[in-house]
């Protein structure tokens, strides 16, 4: 285990801890330092926003935490496991069970219905068909899409697609939800609905949330902590008091 620079934080459970993590890409002759020596700690259950302009490295950092990418150097410890040391197989298991992801572009599989998209992670987890179906149904009801099970993603509105993707992220009961610009493709009203859902997961399920956004207002509205990145480096890290109390979104019936 890597020693924490701040002994105070060692007493609380750390959902995510990075230690001087770097991600460098060679690009022609030069080296792109997408993530350049970032050390952060996120306690379990915290709602963190990663802020920065595009190219600041926030998405790259999120991909490292998600286990989609490996650091060039440093450590990324999520739920007690150093992702840099995991095999490809174990990284896949980490993505399957420990973290859930939602994306700006929803990333649903066009050829599958809503319920099939949601139960896809359960197929990889080898859950049997009947249980898969009931879990997916429950997750979709939770995000207010119980009536849209057999529709294709293309038949849904953007908000409904993002709800589907939230249900999919939720299906394996991950400890950490990673959201990459979750409202980037949505109008402000729909975006609020999605954010309310995410906040509700944070509060009722105790999920750790890491949200990447470039909208400072959105971050200040929901996040408990704001982390600012620029050029792959951490420039600021400050607590924030969300100015909206948890209001159940219109569609949610949880």
């Amino acid at each position, binding site marked *: 285990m890597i020693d924490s620079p701040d002994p105070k934080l060692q007493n609380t459970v750390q959902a995510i801890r990075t230690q001087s993590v770097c991600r460098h890409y060679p690009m022609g002759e030069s080296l792109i330092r997408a993530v350049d020596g970032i050390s952060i700690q996120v306690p379990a259950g915290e709602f963190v926003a990663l802020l920065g302009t595009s190219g600041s490295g926030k998405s790259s950092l999120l*991909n490292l935490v*998600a286990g*989609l*990418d490996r650091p060039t150097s440093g450590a990324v410890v999520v739920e007690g496991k150093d992702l840099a040391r995991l095999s*490809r*197989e174990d990284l*896949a*298991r980490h*993505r*399957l*069970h420990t973290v*859930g*992801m939602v*994306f700006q*572009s929803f*990333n*649903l*599989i066009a*050829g*599958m219905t809503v319920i099939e998209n949601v139960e*896809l*992670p359960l*197929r*990889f*987890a*080898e859950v*049997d*068909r009947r249980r898969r179906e009931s879990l997916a149904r429950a997750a979709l009801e939770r995000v207010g899409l119980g009536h849209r099970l057999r529709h294709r993603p293309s038949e849904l509105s953007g908000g409904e697609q993002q709800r589907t993707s939230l249900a*999919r*992220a939720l299906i*394996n009961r991950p400890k950490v939800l990673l959201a990459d610009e979750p409202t980037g493709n949505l109008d402000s009203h729909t975006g609020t609905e999605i954010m309310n859902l995410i906040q509700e997961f944070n509060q009722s399920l105790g999920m750790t949330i890491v949200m990447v956004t470039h909208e400072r207002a959105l971050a200040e509205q929901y996040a408990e902590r704001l982390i600012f990145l620029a050029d792959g480096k951490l420039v600021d890290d400050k607590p924030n008091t969300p100015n909206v109390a948890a209001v159940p979104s219109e569609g949610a019936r949880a």
Partner: protein
Amino acid sequence: MKAYDLAELAVRNLRESVLRNSLTTVGISVGVASLVAMLSLGIGLQQLATKRLVKSGLFDTVVVTSRRDLRNFNREEDRGGPTPAESPALDEPSRQKIEQLPNVTETYPDLRFITSFNFEDKPHLTMVAGIPASYRTNDAFEGMQGSFFSSDTAPEVVLQKSFAAELLGKTAKPGSNEFPVADLSKPLLGKEMTMRYAERVDLPPTSGALADSKQVAPPAGNDSSEASNYSIVSHELKVKIVGVTDLDPDSMRGPVRARVLLPLKLLESLHVVQPTALRDTTQASSKVPTYATVSVRVKDPARIQSVEDAIKKMGFNTFSILDATRSLGAFFKVLDMFLGIFGSLALAVASIGIVNTLVMAILERRREIGIMKAIGASDGDVKKLFFAEAGVMGAFGGALGVALGWALGRVINAGTNFYLRSQDVAPQQIWFVPWWLVGGAIVFAILVSLVSGLYPAARAARLDPVQALRYE
């Protein structure tokens, strides 16, 4: 991922770009079809070539000769045996002893001689042979006009068609088509002809040493043990023509083709002088009948060797057609191999189609693969999924290909038979699809598809999810 889920996802993915995958599957099926058509043709030809031989009993028959005849078929191996003078005579007791051997179903002497027949006051000289009753079921008599002998002792004959043509005074020009059996049999069936033959009549030892060969025999019932003296009496027997056949069932067994066939029991009862009788006079053997050759039928062609060995141990020479057909079998193995290789060429082309389709699918489904990886699919899951897609295409292509190959074989068969009929040759089944070929072709198609899927699957599994998801 579970196998069922894998198959379900694979079929779903294949349905997504149905045209491309159908075309690839059709490609596989054409490959399988050509393989099936080629091999079924090879198998059919082989069956055609060996069917008559097998059914005519040649494959389960051992021909036994006495070493005294000095007629060694397998000279090399028989050199070490007893000298001709010491070896046993091939007579009735020997025949019965051979019949007692395990796996022997039947033994019968090979009676054949040359004699003349009078038909409508014209003499015709030909070879006569005795046919055992078991030949009733012999397929060599397939296509015979008329009927088989009504009993094993009936004075009836079956004519070989060239002799029938001779009786009718028709002679086929060399190279031209032979007369159809049906045309030849119509005027002959039911007619009688007279067979002349020389009967061997044993003389009592007391009678004159060398009797005139034309002397009439003393009354029957003489059971003298000395048989070295006998006389030859000329006889005539009226026989009825009951059948005309286009094949001599024994054509591969004897040096001369018999053109008139009589019931064996009838022929035996006539005591016709055999070539061996002459030697008997010098060797002073008993009066029990002695045979030039005895045919031994074996239960199963696989037992031929053991029966042959047992008979050799008794001191006789043996010969079976099995040795001669071994090279025939080798020929068809090589033919099948070449047909298989040509058939497989199309399948090889089809497998390139699979590789192409799957590599295209990776490019097209980059993002989908990225998503699956992002939500927890392992490299193995992605690899298996592409494998499953290749396998499903192989299975469908294989099944379709077998059906197509079967149809193709039928068409080739029909076409060939149409040609054969136009050439006045009887239609033949030149095409045969055994069950192992059906199963084997499908399994082979799946295997080829899986091998084709190796590279695309590995490539899909290696795909970097961050890169894949970056594309919009």
